[in-house]
């Protein structure tokens, strides 16, 4: 279902555009996590992926921004006039797109249950998160598993969901230096965000548990199990259940 809300013309002043090097531009709609802002992000990303401009490579939607990657050489060759830089050209094109862009509203979001075995070897930072918030480990697990988390973006690693909706009571800062390797399936917290690491990768989040579910499936057309707009629920499981899940899914 697509419903017209309003064009973005009237909030153009609030939108910032800044370069990310000479070959990319970030359109920033705001500086906070909100579904209001995220809808604008989704609308622009969807538009650009279906209908773009010469020299457009791809775009990466995030919480409150869309970064547009382009080839300056092709942009200049196609739209080049006098002294304008490719950044200025792309900015003008995007401003034009934003003026007529409408936000899309989807009907019912998909709910995805993700089983998580909390604490122990799977969640080495659970105690840190608890201590940081003056809670017990069980309270952290309860708070983490009782919320519904909207998927705002997929990024950082293949299939990695950035989720909103984390209780303020269990926020925790990133680690001072990222770990060089984090096992696939690790569930973590960073600031006011929570997420799952789909593949083994370095990362700086505080780890509180692990899921046996594979979130990245490279052989599928859509390689990420989750996509922006889904709702995630974490379901606590025991170590035994974790092992059973893993057997079943392999």
């Amino acid at each position: 279902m697509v419903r017209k809300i309003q064009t973005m013309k009237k909030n153009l002043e609030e939108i910032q555009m800044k370069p990310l090097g000479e070959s990319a531009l970030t359109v920033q709609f705001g500086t906070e996590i909100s579904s209001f802002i995220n809808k604008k992000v989704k609308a622009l990303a969807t538009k650009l992926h279906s209908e773009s401009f010469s020299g457009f490579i791809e775009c990466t939607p995030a919480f409150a921004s869309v970064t547009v990657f382009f080839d300056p050489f092709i942009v200049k060759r196609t739209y080049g006039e006098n002294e304008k830089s490719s950044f200025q050209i792309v900015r003008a094109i995007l401003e034009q797109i934003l003026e007529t862009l409408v936000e899309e509203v989807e009907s019912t979001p998909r709910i995805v249950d993700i089983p998580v075995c909390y604490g122990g070897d799977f969640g080495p930072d659970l105690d840190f998160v608890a201590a940081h918030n003056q809670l017990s480990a069980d309270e952290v697990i309860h708070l983490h598993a009782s919320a519904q988390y909207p998927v705002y973006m997929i990024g950082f690693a293949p299939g990695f969901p950035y989720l909103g909706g984390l209780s303020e009571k269990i926020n925790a800062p990133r680690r001072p230096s990222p770990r060089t390797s984090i096992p696939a399936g690790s569930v973590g917290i960073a600031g006011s965000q929570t997420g799952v690491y789909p593949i083994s990768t370095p990362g700086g989040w505080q780890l509180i548990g692990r899921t046996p579910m594979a979130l990245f499936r490279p052989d599928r057309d859509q390689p990420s199990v989750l996509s922006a707009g889904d709702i995630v629920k974490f379901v606590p499981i025991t170590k035994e259940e974790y092992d059973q899940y893993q057997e079943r899914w392999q």
Partner: protein
Amino acid sequence: MSVQIIRPGLLATIQDLGRYGFQQYGVVVGGAMDSLSLRLANVLVGNEEGEAAIEVTMMGTSLQFNEDTLISITGGSLNPVIDGNPVPLWRPVFVQKNTVLSFTGCKAGCRAYVAVAGGFSIPNVMNSKSTYIRGEIGGFKGRALQEGDLIPLGEESSFSRKIKKVLQSKLKQGSFASVDWYVPFERYINKSVVRVLKGAEFEKFSESAQKKFFEQEFQITPQSDRMGYRLSGASLGLKQPFELLSEAVANGTIQVPSDGNPIVLLADRQTTGGYPRIGQIAAADLPVVAQMKPGDRVRFQEISLYEAEQLYMKREKEIKQIRTALLLKKWSFE
């Protein structure tokens, strides 16, 4: 036709220009660390610029060509030899059936590219042949090359066949033949100054950090790989701590975690990041960084967006000129 891996060496992978269009699903772009060398290696054997080639890291890699093959080696000078004789870089080379090419050490730079006429006949995964090791996708079976791997080659273009025929006729002795000209691109290897744009959060760093970033030398630590280089040197602090919303990062983004040590994000970088970004390496200088290895020192020189774009345009024109010059060479009469 195929290439057989006799010894993989430190690290050898198949790479092209990367996997585009899937960053929205968090899929890493990857591709050649030094994309300039990859493109030129392909141009020199008559391939499309973005064809897949073998990225050889530092030393120890040995390959055997199972048929007469047209190849080129570009990038770092890793002492490639055939039967003990040095093989020249930055030019097309004809190698005879069953010839073994070995990389015997790091003279300059860190990564060499071996392109073969026709490229490699391996499946595309999400529109790319690049190997993404952490995600176990692309390349040859989603992994680094191993001893015994037999990589099938694709079909040579008619231009490739023309170059091959001319070089083959020049072979008098030994098992390879080349030309006495080369494309003069080796000059960026062993450079230590890298041009950088101010990053999105540059102003959030303390004044002393801003100054040190552009004035002091940093060293590339052993915790460096295709994903990124961790640097040591001056600790770069913020004016005051703040949490940043995760946002897209790019090849060459320099981010600083709260321990103050900068990380340069490279080919296998994550698609988004949440650490403040102090700088962004100009695309034209990414090959310089890609050829640096642990222990090397780097200094960052500030340039404007305008200058970075000029460098980008200049680079593209240079590659185009080389392509044209190569096409104009009278291959059939040499």
